[in-house]
């Protein structure tokens, strides 16, 4: 952990005593305070859910439901976090999920069964990521523009493939993965994939050279280049990684919804960016937290769940979602202020 230059602040924003921060503070460090804050928000939400709907909210099935619904967007958010840490942005994630899901559910791929669908979804995701990466790293395009172009063309292509139709999956082995029978110790397979992606993402970002290079590129690309990092290749890999996550997410969505549709992944880009920012990842790059992002996703999914269980209407849900983004960021500013 890096040493703090400015005196750490406690929850009320007052400066800590001059004789130094309490011992637990030093040990926890800034990132963990943020994680604890997010866990606190999540705990508060669980409390609200438990009080308002004790029977349906505090229920194993509901826990499984919330985690399952967080899985698809969660996997996308892990990839998005890497891209944002490097100072970039990927606006095309939702469109890539849509394209990968419709390509993987066309009649042709369904003939090849489970493997065909999984393979196609991942290949299409990685392929789109490759195009993004090449345009940004070697075409010197601004990530915002390059991925915006991918958003438009991938959605268009998805529409062209489906002709606006819903492509229902008829492969039993794929559908079975979403059924209760395939739960492992009560955990849905989709959630296991989400957990695995989270753990791998955390390890890669925090414990590998690749992760350190990503942070370095996002912190100061020129300095990273002078330090001997191949910035362009690093960027290429990061958009590939985001595309790969979209491919995996597309497969999870196919299992969940039992179909591919060109409207799949609608507004995932905004949800993923919002979750990453709530999680403490800087939109300007140079700092990111996989666990924070995942907690951000869980917070959003839990809110949606509580709203639905209490039968609140869409307009109320949207207003509250906006308010919670603002509140979460404000709370973070106070508990874990940046340099």
């Amino acid at each position, binding site marked *: 952990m890096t040493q703090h230059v400015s005196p750490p602040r406690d929850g009320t924003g007052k400066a800590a005593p001059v004789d130094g921060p309490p011992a637990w503070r030093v040990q926890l460090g800034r990132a963990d305070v943020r994680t604890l804050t997010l866990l606190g928000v999540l705990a508060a939400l669980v409390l609200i859910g438990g009080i308002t709907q004790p029977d349906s909210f505090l229920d194993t099935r509901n826990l499984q439901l919330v985690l399952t619904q967080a899985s698809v967007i969660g996997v996308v958010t892990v990839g998005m976090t890497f891209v944002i840490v490097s100072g970039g942005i990927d606006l095309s994630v939702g469109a890539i999920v849509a394209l990968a899901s419709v390509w993987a559910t066309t009649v042709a791929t369904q003939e090849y069964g489970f493997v065909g669908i999984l393979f196609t979804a991942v290949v299409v995701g990685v392929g789109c990521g490759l195009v993004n990466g090449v345009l940004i790293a070697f075409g010197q395009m601004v990530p915002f523009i390059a991925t915006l172009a991918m958003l438009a063309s991938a959605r268009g292509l998805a529409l062209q493939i489906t002709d*606006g139709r819903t492509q229902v999956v008829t492969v039993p082995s794929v559908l079975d993965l979403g059924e209760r029978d395939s739960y492992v110790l009560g955990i849905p397979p989709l959630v296991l994939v989400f957990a695995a992606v989270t753990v791998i993402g955390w390890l890669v970002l925090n414990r590998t050279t690749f992760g350190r290079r990503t942070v370095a590129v996002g912190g100061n690309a020129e300095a990273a280049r002078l330090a001997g990092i191949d910035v362009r290749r690093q960027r290429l890999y990061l958009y590939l990684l985001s595309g790969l996550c979209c491919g995996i997410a597309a497969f999870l969505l196919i299992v969940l919804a039992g179909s591919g549709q060109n409207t*799949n992944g609608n507004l995932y880009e905004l949800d993923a960016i919002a979750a990453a920012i709530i999680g403490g990842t800087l939109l300007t790059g140079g700092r990111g937290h996989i666990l924070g992002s995942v907690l951000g996703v869980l917070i959003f999914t839990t809110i949606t769940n509580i709203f639905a269980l*209490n039968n609140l209407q869409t307009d109320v849900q949207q207003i509250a979602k906006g308010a919670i983004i603002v509140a979460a960021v404000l709370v973070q500013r106070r508990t874990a202020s940046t340099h």
Partner: protein
Amino acid sequence: MTNLPSRRGLLFGAAAVSAGVVLTGCTSNDPDDGDDKAADTQPAADDQPGKQVTIGYAGPQADHGWLNAVNDQAQKRAEKYSDVTLEVTEGSNDTAQQIGQIETLINKKVDVLVVLPADGKALTQVGLKAMRAGIPVVNLDRIFNSPQAYRCWVGGDNYGMGLNAAHYIGEKLKGKSGAKVIELAGLDNLELTQQRTKGFDDGLKNYPNIQKVARQAAEFTVESGQAKMAQLLQAQSQFDALWNHDDDQGVGALRAIEQAGRDDFLMVGGAGALSAFQAIKADSGVLKATVLYPPTMAASAIDLARALGQGKGVSGLAEFEIPSTVTCYSAVVDKENVDQYMSTGFK
């Protein structure tokens, strides 16, 4: 009271028929006698080839099963007539682009325009322009802001969908006290969603034994249907019926129902997708019926446009001209009549 003539009058749409014709119908037992009837002086449109008509068709981007079916129905119907040439523009959801396409059709001097605007209000001006240029406009589904912008409107009955869904559910749950229904609505910021819900609520008022206990809005997509339905199922441990506004999101809703292992209620869908018809026919799950929002209205729009171009009335109506509005009926399709509708089901 002799109510036979008035009943017949109703059958032929008494409200739309002129007083003189009603009088004729009331005083005569045989509709074929008399020599001053409208049908003799004004030919009704039929399948016999007539004057060549060029119809310009501008529809939205088919990004949804129903819209795709609408575009299909229009083209197939036009192919049926040897005297109709259909000029089709590329579907677009972009207002400016669709205005440009319609202006191109006006410049080509097509005889009649059929327009399903991406946004009815935004395209009112170009509808007016076509009408002023002497090209009658058949406005399909999403209505223009001004009646001056179209000669005829053909569309569905969203309120009627809700109403008929409520009546179907009401009859099924008759005699069950304390019955609960839930509603999975479509995109909440569309007026049509609000109309469907209003019709449903009004219909349910006829059945005091039924209470609507929950309503969630999805987004007309499979993904949103699955997500919202999964939550609804978790929230409501027991209910008797579900009305889902749209069969496309219904694919997702059915998936959520299957994943939750629930089969303790009946489900009524909306719109009329092929997959819904097949599920109703197979009768293997909770889906027992669907309320139509018929895509065949596009075929009817072509019929009316052809009649307009040829200066004919409509077969079955005594009017000299085609009507100014046609609202399609939101029929309930269940196991009994599903075969009749199967061919109109969209993928």
